[in-house]
Structures are given as C-alpha cells and as structure tokens.
C-alpha cells in the first residue's frame, strides 16, 4: 500500500527522491574505481544497500519489496559467491594455483586486472544482496499479520 502523502512527509519524500539516484551512482563509482582510489567491493555493496534502505524507510517496505524480491536477493547473493569461485577455478583449470590471476589472459598485467575486476564485482554483488536481505528480514518481522 502506498503511504498517504501528508504535509509533514513531503520534505522527506522530495529529499529522498533527489538523493537516491546519486547514491546509487556513487556506489557504482566506488565499485569500479577501487583500483585507483579508496573503495572496492565492500564499500560499494554497503552503499548500494543503504540506498535501498533509504527508499524503504521513506516510501514503505512494500514498495521496496516489489523491486527487491526475496528470490532475487537470494539468487544475487549466491551468484556473487559462485562468480568468485569460478574465477578461482578458471585459474586452476589453466594450470596454475587456485586464484592465481596471472594465467587468466595473454599478458600477466591483463590477467591481474581482469581477475581483480571480477572478484571486486562479485564481492560488491554479494555484500549488497546480503545487506538488503538482512534489512528486509528485520523490517518485515514487525509487520502484524
């Protein structure tokens, strides 16, 4: 159910609507610039989840649930873990140690870059999905049936 638009709610709703897209963009920025500046997978995942939390707090848990369904979050969290292990297995099948990025591409530096990019991506996906899962579990517990 959409919560009714009340006067005291209005400023919050407008501020949230203006803030949430930049927060999501910032999460993506932090994710992909983890190599040249501070950042990386964990920070990006947490910032992404907090944008969804902000949306759920202002507009109601029901609307937020319609986007981030239970099944989608479970699939995303497992997908992140699977991606990380696949990168490690790819190194194993190419003849090197587990999670040795040198053999992933033609050149050593290319392999390292590719490996780091994929692992950071998987970390970001899993952390964001798990944080959202935890938030929705806590939030829906208080709903009277």
């Amino acid at each position: 159910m959409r919560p009714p638009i009340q006067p005291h709610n209005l400023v919050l709703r407008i501020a949230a609507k203006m803030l949430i897209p930049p927060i999501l963009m910032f999460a993506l920025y932090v994710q992909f610039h983890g190599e040249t500046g501070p950042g990386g997978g964990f920070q990006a995942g947490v910032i992404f989840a907090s944008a969804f939390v902000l949306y759920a707090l202002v507009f109601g848990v029901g609307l937020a649930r319609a986007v981030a369904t239970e099944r989608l979050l479970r699939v995303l969290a497992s997908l992140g873990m699977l991606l990380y292990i696949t990168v490690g297995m790819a190194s194993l099948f190419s003849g090197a140690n587990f999670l040795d990025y040198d053999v992933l591409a033609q050149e050593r530096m290319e392999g390292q870059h590719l490996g780091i990019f994929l692992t950071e991506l998987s970390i970001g996906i899993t952390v964001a999905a798990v944080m959202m899962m935890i938030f929705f579990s806590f939030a829906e517990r208080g709903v009277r049936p």
Partner: protein
Amino acid sequence: MLAVIRLRNLFAVVMLFGIYSFLAAALFVTLNAVDVAFTEAAVGAGIATFLMLSTLALTVRREKLRRKRSVIPLLVVTSIGATLVYGTFDMPYFSDPSAPLHSHVARHYIESSTAEVGVPNLVTAVLTSYRGYDTLGELTVIFTAGIGVLALLGYRKRGGKR
C-alpha cells in the same frame, strides 16, 4: 564512553555508539588509512547502528534497573587493563619507522606491487591478489550470516505468538 555504561535509555546508547563509530572513522583518516575509514564509516556508523535501532523497535526501549551491584566485574576489568598496560612497555613507539612490523612482508608488497600486480591502490592489491583466499573466506562469512538471519527471522510469525 562512560555515558554508555550509565545510560538506561537504549536509544541514546545506540546513538552514542554511532557517534563513536564515526569518530573512529575520522581517526582512521588522520592515520592515513582511507579504505578502512571508508568501510568503518559505511558499516559501523551505517549498518550496525541501523540494525541496533531495528532491534530496539522490535524489543524494548529502556533498560531495567539492576537490583544488586557487584564489584567483581570492575575488579576483573581493572586487573586486565593493568596487565595490558604492563605489556605495552615493550612495544615499539607510536609511528616508529624502524618497528619490525614495517620491515619484512610489507616492504616486499610495497616494492613489488607495481611490477607484479599493477594496481595503484595497495590495499586492494593485497586484499584481492596477494591474499585473495582470505577474501573468499570473508565473503563466505557474510553469506553465512545472511543465511542465518534469514533462517531466524525470515518467515512470518505464525498467528498467536504475540
């Protein structure tokens, strides 16, 4: 910090903890640990505070008064603290460049990271390339915690429990 011990209004305790996390993140910035400051600010002052507030919304708001006060915890804590202070007299001085911590493995990482990995951010390079296996373990811990919370709180309450 002493206010956290004495306060009985739990909401105020959680807010003070959020401020403490944020101050710790600012401290990390002055100690030149930018990645850690980022993570501590996002996680400590964001997620942890938020989870505690959710728990407060689902349980109680104030703490009950304890009937008896015993002095044993204070003695235990003071003796542990005194032992730790005694142990710090042998430790290297603050920001000492010749401490054994900075000599062996860290020097190798700093010097050969450009040639072997090619990523400017040293913390990311160590975290994902040199110590990638530990990061896999960390990811597993987060995943398991998510599954655990889902198992504990994921299903709607059956009617009649409230």
